[in-house]
């Protein structure tokens, strides 16, 4: 054994430690894999040993191996592990930023995808800030797979880093119209999620969503959009009107239940937001209710559940239409599924009327009896109370019935809602004066049978009702039949087992009872009896004095002294009843719950100021006010007239104080108060008294509320007869036909039923000039609040995503990175793509936007399709599809209607465009079919950057792409774009998208270009001037990818063309062929320009300087709106707008070699003139030529 251990420790000396492992891996460059697997074997062996140190070492090495592989092979596993165990607080995350960034820019779409997925799980504010711009870039990735993930993750980024929302929003919006349905759906998802929290900021997107809704066929997207509309309509009722029509159509046409359900839901939301007076909307309601009925009647429990859920929404605004389906709802109450029963209960709430309340509640009561499981029973109980008490007991015609229902409910065992019942009893008794007598009789019965209620378990909540019972009997004791009996019931020893707060109420109300008994007996001159009652009080009160509950104790001892005093007076034959009952004189009115809060602070009153300087010695002076306060406190809202006997009270208090001082029990608590009191009451608590039960509670077979139902029915019948009689007499003179029909109606409307009691529901008191209701503050911790950002406001200069600065090793991959030095170069002026023209202009645009929305909303809702100009384009898109033909006339109609609008001009232009774009679209659709996305807008050229293009709604430009066709044959299609960057004054990057259009596998692609004197292609070091540059990827069938090539350009003042050839091997099943494709690469002067912002003052200085040469052109026959013209020029020629006034704009740009280019663009009736100033006349004329070509197409 010992030998083995020694051997083990010697072995260990040869074990590798972590350093050895690392060294080893570095030394085995040739066969790393083998070496690692060897090491892993060793690690496993080591793990099996029982030596802890060895194990620790092994784990250490393994971790390293894992760390290595994290970067290389096991990226998926690594991210999976990270997403499962990292969270915001994990420190390691700080270290991962660069790894993630690397993965995000990985050439493999799956690596990027995995990184995005992982990031979505553990993104932190720091990560979000650091990676936001990288993810932004990915949103325009060529692969839809990456794009959709990047779009989706933006939501998480927004949440963590709200500042990114505004800079990123334009692109997000753009993705709503992405050709790939997956990306589109992701964008819809994100915007819906954003809009749900802050809907008002997204109202301006309504037209766009509307367009999507009418065009999309993806149910998932439709559902999301429709749900979003549901959130938007409350903010903009006009939107609702517009929605009704298409939604109704969807309801009729769709076969998907989920979609149908969401449509119904949104229609309901719309109807809620509209004023109910709209006549033609009753049809929509009917449709909804009808569809919901189908759902509810379905055998699928899920549909049933949802149907009920939606029904309850309608109920809130259109109770009438739901009420007719009462049968269905009641039927659902019997369903075996509890969720469904609960939903049905919700519905009942709105279905009751004066007429059917009793019937429904009766049904519910039987359910209460049958229900197993306390949760459901409690739910029933609260629902019964809710139903009955809703809108100030509106539906209750017979309060005797209601009280008896409440009393019946007290028999529920183990309910948590005793306090609810108690509150109802109190409320009814206080507010319905007529019912007090009845209530008091019921309550006294309840008090008599308190043992039934409170017996079983101490902890059950139902004993709360005794609180109400005691208070009602005390407060309205004048209505009591046998006050003496009730008094005794309240003084029973058993009472002391009740919870403290209930005992306290007992004690207080015993005195009220006592006062009224005294009064009665003194009036009847029964001095003897009165003294007996007093004696009873004196005997029984000590049991409360010994209570452990302070409140009970204090009240009891106070009252005991009072009664003792009364006893003395009685002994002297002094009439006391008057004075005792004066203690409780005064009417009690219900006070609104918020009344106290709403009392206005009188002018000049400073609540924080001292009234008197805080007294140093408070003993004597404090006594009085304190005592008064004490008396007031327990009964929260009492209004008394304490003035009369305040002196006496004070005197008594003084006496009590003395008494307390002498009372040995008062100071030190007695050892066992329970025992003590048991000795005291003696025979009294023999339960003989309790046999004397009042009748109603004991009827076993028939619940007593039924009696009232019957009585009420009879009463109503009588009432009806009487009414009929009256009517007859009246209508004798009237026409007979109408009258007959009227009276023969078996049902009566709600209003006909007069309540049995004189119901004077006292409204709650509010203080005079109450303050307007204070709004509840929003939760300041809500994470979504940070996203409450106005998105219509143009971007400010300071708003941009932080971009990581690092060495630029490769040719411009991300122009954002490239642009960082620009900022440095151009000294103070803050800029970047997101910067804007002038403040004035922003404002204008913004107003315009609002108007657009208004315009969109205000057009009277014509049939389903929409009058939005932007939508017209959409219909143009689909012109090719045959099914559209049926809609043809409709659209025409629409167009006619629109011709009258002020937007005539723009519309024409867009129509003009349609032919041109049709081809493009067809092409695009073809591509879409192949599931790829060749067009990639490079962010540098994006229209978004130029503020001018920010508004889209009403005259959406077709998606602009700076990629132009380079060459195409049956195998491959090449599109290209040229990007310049400021740091390299003689270099441009050409991005070429290669798209495999064949069924063959394309490989060994090589691009060779014939250099000119002026422009040369950058080739790998050492290769010859004529050698081609290999394309770093292969293309499987139907796939496209982008390659970038760098060119060096000497002079940029002239446009030029380079000839080139792409050679590749096309391999298919039959074999491989060598193919070639010639092309001409066109370097326009515009591609040497870089969008550079310029302030108007700097611009003015530049123009004044006088060292710019000038030239101008004019193009006729332009119908496009000025706005779109600007966008186009900004986009294709890389200009930024400096200032814009009406149809005149100044623009600026800068070449990579530092030439300034200033433009003044003026639009006349149908012509556009461009005046240009540039530091180089040749460059200017070349540019203007190019611009002319662009404008000619407009």
């Amino acid at each position: 054994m010992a030998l083995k251990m020694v051997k083990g420790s010697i072995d260990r000396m040869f074990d590798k430690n972590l350093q050895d492992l690392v060294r080893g891996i570095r030394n085995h460059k040739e066969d790393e894999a083998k070496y690692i697997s060897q090491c892993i074997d060793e690690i496993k062996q080591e793990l099996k040993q029982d030596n802890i140190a060895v194990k620790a070492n092994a784990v250490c090495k393994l971790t390293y191996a894992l760390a290595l592989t994290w970067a290389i092979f096991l990226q998926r596993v690594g991210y999976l592990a990270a997403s499962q165990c990292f969270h915001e607080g994990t420190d390691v995350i700080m270290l991962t930023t660069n790894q993630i960034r690397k993965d995000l820019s990985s050439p493999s779409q799956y690596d990027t995808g995995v990184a995005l997925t992982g990031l979505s799980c553990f993104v932190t504010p720091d990560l979000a800030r650091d990676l936001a711009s990288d993810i932004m870039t990915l949103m325009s990735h060529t692969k839809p797979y990456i794009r959709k993930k990047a779009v989706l993750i933006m939501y998480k980024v927004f949440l963590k880093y709200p500042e990114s929302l505004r800079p990123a929003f334009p692109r997000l919006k753009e993705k709503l119209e992405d050709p790939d349905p997956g990306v589109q759906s992701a964008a819809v998802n994100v915007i819906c999620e954003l809009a749900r929290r802050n809907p008002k900021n997204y109202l301006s997107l309504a037209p766009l969503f509307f367009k999507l809704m009418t065009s999309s066929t993806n149910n998932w997207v439709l559902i999301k959009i429709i749900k979003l509309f549901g959130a938007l309509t409350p903010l903009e009722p006009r939107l609702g009107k517009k929605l009704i029509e298409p939604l109704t159509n969807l309801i009729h046409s769709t076969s998907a239940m989920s979609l149908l359900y969401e449509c119904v839901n949104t229609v309901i939301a719309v109807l809620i937001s509209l004023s109910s007076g709209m006549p033609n909307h009753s049809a929509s309601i009917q449709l909804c209710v009808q569809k919901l009925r189908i759902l509810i009647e379905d055998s699928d429990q899920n549909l049933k559940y949802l149907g009920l859920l939606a029904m309850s929404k309608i109920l809130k605004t259109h109770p009438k239409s739901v009420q007719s389906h009462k049968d269905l709802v009641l039927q659902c109450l019997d369903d075996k599924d509890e969720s469904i029963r609960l939903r049905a209960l919700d519905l009942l709430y709105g279905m009751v009327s004066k007429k059917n309340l009793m019937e429904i509640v009766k049904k519910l009561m039987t359910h209460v009896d049958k229900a197993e499981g306390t949760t459901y029973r409690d739910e029933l109980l609260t629902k019964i109370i809710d139903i009955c008490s809703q809108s100030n007991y509106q539906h209750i015609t017979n309060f005797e019935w209601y009280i008896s229902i409440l009393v019946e409910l007290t028999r529920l065992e183990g309910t948590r809602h005793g306090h609810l019942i108690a509150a109802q009893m109190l409320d009814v008794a206080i507010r319905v004066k007529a019912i007090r007598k009845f209530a008091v009789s019921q309550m006294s019965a309840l008090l008599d049978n308190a043992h039934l209620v409170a017996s079983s378990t101490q902890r059950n909540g139902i004993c709360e009702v005794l609180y109400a019972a005691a208070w009602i009997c005390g407060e309205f004791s004048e209505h009591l039949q046998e006050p003496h009996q009730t008094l005794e019931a309240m003084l029973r020893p058993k009472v002391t087992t009740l919870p403290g707060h209930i005992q306290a109420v007992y004690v207080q109300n015993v005195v009220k009872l006592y006062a009224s008994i005294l009064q009665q007996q003194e009036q009847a001159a029964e001095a003897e009896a009165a003294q007996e009652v007093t004696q009873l009080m004196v005997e029984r009160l000590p049991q409360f004095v010994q209570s452990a509950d302070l409140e009970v104790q204090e009240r009891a001892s106070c009252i005991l002294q009072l009664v003792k005093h009364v006893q003395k007076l009685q002994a002297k034959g002094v009439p006391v009843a008057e004075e005792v009952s004066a203690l409780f004189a005064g009417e009690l009115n219900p006070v609104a719950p918020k009344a106290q809060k709403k009392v206005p602070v009188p002018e000049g009153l400073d609540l924080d100021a001292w009234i008197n300087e805080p007294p140093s010695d408070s003993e004597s002076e404090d006594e009085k006010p304190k005592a008064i306060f004490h008396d007031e406190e327990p009964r929260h809202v009492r209004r008394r007239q304490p003035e009369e006997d305040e002196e006496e009270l004070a005197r008594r208090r003084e006496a009590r104080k003395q008494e307390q001082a002498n009372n040995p029990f008062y100071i030190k608590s007695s050892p066992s108060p329970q025992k003590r009191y048991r000795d005291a009451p003696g025979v009294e608590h023999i339960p003989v008294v309790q046999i004397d039960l009042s009748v109603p509670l004991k009827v076993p077979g028939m619940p007593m509320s039924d009696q009232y139902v019957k009585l009420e029915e009879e009463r109503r019948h009588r009432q009806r007869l009487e009414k009929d009689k009256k009517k007859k007499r009246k209508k004798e003179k009237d026409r007979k036909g109408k009258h007959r029909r009227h009276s023969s109606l078996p049902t009566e409307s709600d209003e006909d039923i007069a309540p049995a009691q004189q119901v004077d529901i006292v409204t709650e008191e509010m203080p005079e000039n109450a303050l307007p209701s204070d709004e509840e503050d929003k939760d300041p911790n809500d994470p979504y609040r940070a996203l409450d950002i106005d998105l219509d406001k143009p971007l400010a200069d300071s708003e941009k995503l932080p971009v990581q600065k690092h060495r630029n090793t490769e040719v411009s991959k991300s122009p954002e990175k490239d642009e960082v030095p620009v900022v440095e170069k151009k000294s103070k002026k803050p800029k970047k793509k997101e910067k804007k023209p002038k403040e004035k202009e922003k404002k204008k645009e913004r107003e315009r936007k609002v108007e657009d929305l208004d315009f969109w909303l205000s057009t009277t809702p014509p049939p389903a399709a929409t009058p939005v100009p932007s939508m017209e384009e959409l219909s143009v898109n689909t012109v090719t599809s045959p099914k559209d033909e049926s809609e043809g006339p409709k659209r025409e109609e629409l167009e006619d209607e629109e011709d009258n609008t002020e937007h005539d001009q723009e519309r024409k232009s867009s129509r003009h465009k349609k032919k041109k774009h049709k081809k493009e679209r067809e092409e695009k659709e073809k591509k879409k079919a192949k599931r790829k996305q060749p067009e990639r807008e490079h962010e540098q050229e994006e229209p978004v950057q130029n503020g001018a293009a920010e508004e889209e709604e009403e005259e959406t430009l077709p998606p602009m792409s700076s990629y132009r066709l380079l060459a195409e044959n049956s195998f491959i299609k090449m599109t290209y774009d040229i990007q310049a960057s400021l740091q390299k004054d003689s270099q441009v990057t050409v991005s070429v998208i290669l798209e495999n259009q064949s069924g063959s596998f394309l490989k060994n692609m090589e691009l060779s270009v014939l250099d000119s004197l002026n422009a040369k292609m950058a080739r790998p070091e050492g290769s010859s001037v004529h050698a081609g540059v290999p394309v770093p990827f292969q293309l499987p069938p139907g796939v496209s990818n982008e390659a970038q090539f760098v060119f060096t350009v000497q002079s940029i003042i002239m446009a030029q063309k380079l000839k080139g050839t792409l050679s590749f091997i096309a391999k298919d099943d039959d074999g491989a062929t060598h193919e070639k494709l010639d092309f001409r690469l066109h370097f326009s002067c515009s591609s040497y320009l870089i969008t550079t912002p310029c302030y108007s003052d700097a611009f003015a200085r530049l123009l004044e300087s006088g060292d710019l040469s000038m030239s101008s052109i004019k193009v006729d026959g332009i119908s496009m709106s000025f706005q779109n013209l600007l966008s186009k020029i900004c986009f294709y020629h890389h200009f930024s707008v400096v200032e814009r006034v009406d149809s005149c704009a100044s623009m600026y740009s800068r070449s990579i070699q530092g030439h300034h280019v200033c433009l003044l663009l003026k639009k006349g009736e149908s012509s556009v003139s461009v005046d240009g100033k540039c530091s180089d006349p040749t460059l200017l004329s070349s540019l203007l030529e190019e611009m002319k070509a662009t404008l000619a197409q407009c």
Partner: protein
Amino acid sequence: MIKAILIFNNHGKPRLSKFYQPYSEDTQQQIIRETFHLVSKRDENVCNFLEGLLIGESDNKLIYRHYATLYFVFCVDSSESELGILDLIQVFVETLDKCFENVCELDLIFHVDKVHNILAEMVMGGMVLETNMNEIVTQIDAQNKLEKSEAGLAEALACAVSAVKNMNLPEIPRNINIGDISIKVLNLPSFK
């Protein structure tokens, strides 16, 4: 938003749990337990929705489906369509079925990573990424191919990791012989 996705079997053994909001380990366990408790009580032919029970906010809903031995539970908030999520669960299960060829509980146990990957293609960060099954399957297949080509070392490491796991767990049956698992390393790209 989807707040959490849970899969557990008829006995409450979790087979997959994915939380899209951070919770401590204990809370996660508790949520799984409670969810199982709620869901397992329900009859087969009642509706598949449960209200506001799990995880904080009141507008949350549990939407679940029961397949043979497994419960698939999604916890979502009010922005998701109930029926839509039910369909999504169906898509998820069908996708699993396609990827594993007749999926069963054991597949979920032995290929947790794959299940997670499939899920990641459908739901990302609590938002639905893709609902088209064919699209999901295509992506998963492509990734699997890619992974196979790099699988060698991964396997070796996975074995070693499992060795670590076994190291400190005395209750795990001793008859698992780690030494028997042979490790093959294929086409390793060289480290740089």
